[in-house]
């Protein structure tokens, strides 16, 4: 039963091998990276089918019993996250190789594998300090990927991103110290078991730790008021990296879901309703920030980055309800928004590299204008949440889950108005980029030599394939919404089953 640790060990072994042995041979590095990522996808499928029966699988590192050693925990939710990561990784890798992004700097594939290692570890771990360590692993790899292939704006945006996250990591450590000082443990299951027995005088300290952790995860999930790093980072990162980062915001959302339901969930004195109280208004403002950003963006990449902010807001509104139905909706929307955001970044890369600059200004139509317009249209429909793709179903589920009087007015108006503004923003961008450009003739005074020399090459099948694959995945997600949401229903029921989680990790509870 060593399957559970493989998503962490496989990239951890592969990355140094690629970095040290294959660094001078890009073909070899590509082959190894693709082979590793496809293997990871196969493992993720296997783990998901293993977790689908509802048992919480626990892997004890070094076979140390739970509160003393570090455990990895595989349940339906973490298996789902692994599967999503693996799917996204394969798609992004194909794009990076087909467009040659991976050869524009060094060590793309090694960093890519380290990034996967960190993300998988964060999804699997059952120990909060270990979560911190995996956060650092995925962050340090993302620093490298963020500034891949260099450039002035990218380096400066990368520096901001690093500073922001280092400050976040420091806050994470403060939160962990506070939590350890008041509970004496950092194992998630052990914390969940001890939380109801916290003495009243320690409860305030635990609340502080809970909110500090919330802020740390909010930084990762780009929640207002700590969302400001995201647009600069995503729009200046290399496009395949930005597409991969679509899963990074979800690491933050996953951590909120895991920690603030299992540890600080119902029954924990002082903290049980704390998370929802703060998360809900912040998520509402996040939707607004995202929508206005989409409307006001002057370049395509920031526009997509702001739509990611908006989608995180929509997802976290549902998370903030902390109920099983709302969590199901949030998870469905999460799968959708990850794929939709990645899809948009990949299309934007194909479009922007064929234009003179990434500005939303009409330019003479480039090659394959119709194809790019169609793909962008489909992806924008998905992101804005219109039928027939899964975004519509996702938003419908979120709206349906938030029918309590306290939530309904704010959530419905924010999501509906936000969606409308997003549609307007995308329609504006799309019509400027693809429609107005057809009306502009190529300037006649240019010599033929210039035109032929500057004409960008049309996109090859391999370059378009990842985008089409992602759109197909979104369509499949919409068609099989029934089975998927049944699985997610079970996943969120399992997430809220604190006793089951504690018992699986710590062994049968002794009554005393």
């Amino acid at each position: 039963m060593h399957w559970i640790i493989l998503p962490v060990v496989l990239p951890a072994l592969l990355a140094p091998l690629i970095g040290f042995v294959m660094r001078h041979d890009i073909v070899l590095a590509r082959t190894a990276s693709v082979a590793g990522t496809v293997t990871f996808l196969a493992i993720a499928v296997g783990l998901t089918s293993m977790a689908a029966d509802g048992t919480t699988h626990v892997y004890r590192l070094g076979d140390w019993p739970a509160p003393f050693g570090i455990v990895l925990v595989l349940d339906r939710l973490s298996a789902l996250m692994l599967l999503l990561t693996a799917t996204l990784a394969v798609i992004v890798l194909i794009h990076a190789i087909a467009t040659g992004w991976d050869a524009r700097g060094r060590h793309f594939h090694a960093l890519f594998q380290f990034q996967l290692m960190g993300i998988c570890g964060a999804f699997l771990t059952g120990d909060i300090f270990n979560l911190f360590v995996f956060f650092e692993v995925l962050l340090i790899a993302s620093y490298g990927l963020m500034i891949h292939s260099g450039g002035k704006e990218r380096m400066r945006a990368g520096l901001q991103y690093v500073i922001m996250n280092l400050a976040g990591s420091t806050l994470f450590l403060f939160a962990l110290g506070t939590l350890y000082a008041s509970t004496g443990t950092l194992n998630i299951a052990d914390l969940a078991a001890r939380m109801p027995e916290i003495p009243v005088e320690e409860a305030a300290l635990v609340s502080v730790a809970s909110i500090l952790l919330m802020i740390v995860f909010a930084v990762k999930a780009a929640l207002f008021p700590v969302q400001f790093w995201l647009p600069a980072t995503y729009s200046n990162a290399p496009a395949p990296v930005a597409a991969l980062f679509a899963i990074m915001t979800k690491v933050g959302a996953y951590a909120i879901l895991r920690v603030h339901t299992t540890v600080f969930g119902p029954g924990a004195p002082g903290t049980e309703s704390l998370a929802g109280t703060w998360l809900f208004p912040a998520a509402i403002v996040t939707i607004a920030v995202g929508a206005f950003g989409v409307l006001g963006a002057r370049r395509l990449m920031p526009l997509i980055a702001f739509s990611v902010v908006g989608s995180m807001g929509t997802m976290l509104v549902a998370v903030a309800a902390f109920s099983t139905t709302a969590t199901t909706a949030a998870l469905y929307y999460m799968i959708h928004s990850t794929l939709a955001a990645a899809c948009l970044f990949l299309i934007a890369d194909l479009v922007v590299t064929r234009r003179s600059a990434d500005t939303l200004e009409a330019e003479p139509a480039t090659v394959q204008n119709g194809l790019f317009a169609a793909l962008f249209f489909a992806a924008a429909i998905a992101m804005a949440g219109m039928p027939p793709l899964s975004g519509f179903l996702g938003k419908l589920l979120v709206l349906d889950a938030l029918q309590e009087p306290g939530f309904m007015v704010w959530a419905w108006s924010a999501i509906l108005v936000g969606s409308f503004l997003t549609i307007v923003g995308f329609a504006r961008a799309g019509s400027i980029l693809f429609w107005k450009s057809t009306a502009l003739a190529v300037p006649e005074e240019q010599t033929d030599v210039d035109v032929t020399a500057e004409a960008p090459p049309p996109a090859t099948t391999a370059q378009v394939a990842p985008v089409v694959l992602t759109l197909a995945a979104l369509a499949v997600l919409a068609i099989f919404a029934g089975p998927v949401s049944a699985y997610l229903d079970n996943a969120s029921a399992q997430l809220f089953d604190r006793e089951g989680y504690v018992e699986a990790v710590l062994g049968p509870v002794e009554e005393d």
Partner: protein
Amino acid sequence: MELIVATTVGVLTAGGVYLLLRLRTFPVILGLALLSYAVNVFLFASGRLAIDQSPILSKYGEATYTDPLPQALVLTAIVISFGMTAVLVMIGLGAYLEAESDRVDIEPETPDANDQGERT
């Protein structure tokens, strides 16, 4: 003892936050280093302060002990923050050499008049 540790953490954090809010790379890096020192001392104290105690349980007698786990956590945190600071210095240097400016805020539309770097 408690007062000294608490004051140290407080002063280091305050200094760290102040430097972090500066606009140039070097003070920000120093600020993050101060913050990481503060958090290391803080983590060390999270197992309660015990003086002259060994970090192991004694089989003989009722001897108290100091909690060994925070020491392990601090060790991990030190290693990580050391590595991260190195990465940050390299990226900061890279950004400075590329942009010819060590400002950490991005203002591509309205470049600062004091900025000696080229205007975008």
